[in-house]
């Protein structure tokens, strides 16, 4: 059975802290791994990772994939209150319909 596990489930930090969110997966027909940010509305796309060891970066956010150990991390440096959200990890699978398989999400709260 395909599985995507995120940790921690929730996290509370102070502004300025650095956080690392984890996503591990056990799936067949892996194609790519995606990170989304969800505030009180639709998830918005952050990163797509297909190759091991290549860091993707956008401002204070960065992410990397390890296809040998089957995990990815999402780092957020110098956190701000606007980073408070649920962060979703998804694995994109090959095959009919090209499914996206999501983890449970990590709920991040950044307090001033």
């Amino acid at each position, binding site marked *: 059975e395909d599985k995507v596990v995120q940790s921690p489930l929730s996290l509370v930090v102070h502004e300025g802290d650095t956080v690392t969110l984890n996503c591990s997966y056990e799936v067949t027909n892996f194609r790519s791994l995606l990170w989304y940010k969800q505030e009180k509305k639709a998830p918005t796309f952050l990163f797509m990772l297909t190759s091991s060891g290549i860091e993707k970066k956008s401002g204070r956010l960065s992410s990397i994939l390890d296809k040998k150990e089957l995990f990815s991390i999402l780092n957020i440096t110098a956190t701000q209150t606007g980073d408070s959200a649920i962060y979703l990890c998804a694995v994109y699978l090959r095959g009919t*319909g090209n*499914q996206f398989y*999501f983890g449970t999400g990590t709920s991040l709260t950044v307090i001033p």
Partner: protein
Amino acid sequence: DVKVTQSSRYLVKRTGEKVFLECVQDMDHENMFWYRQDPGLGLRLIYFSYDVKMKEKGDIPEGYSVSREKKERFSLILESASTNQTSMYLCASSSRQGHMNTEAFFGQGTRLTVV
């Protein structure tokens, strides 16, 4: 700009009612998905469709059905709503690009409460 639109943001229905959730995308995407999102359980796939009139069950199809009569529209139907179907429902779409990777684009979600 890419757009996935769900017909309602909030919906309150009575137990036993038939409920229709509508989703429309304007990106000419082949794939469309319905998820439900519950605290601690993440997004769980209910049904998806990779073409008009085609549908595949996801992980939790029980109590739901879907309809895809046109490429841009994917409907989720609760034949007889029950209180355990109270949830946030998210529609998504993606292109089928062969060997290319793609992302899922989401609607704003429908928060359904069944009383």
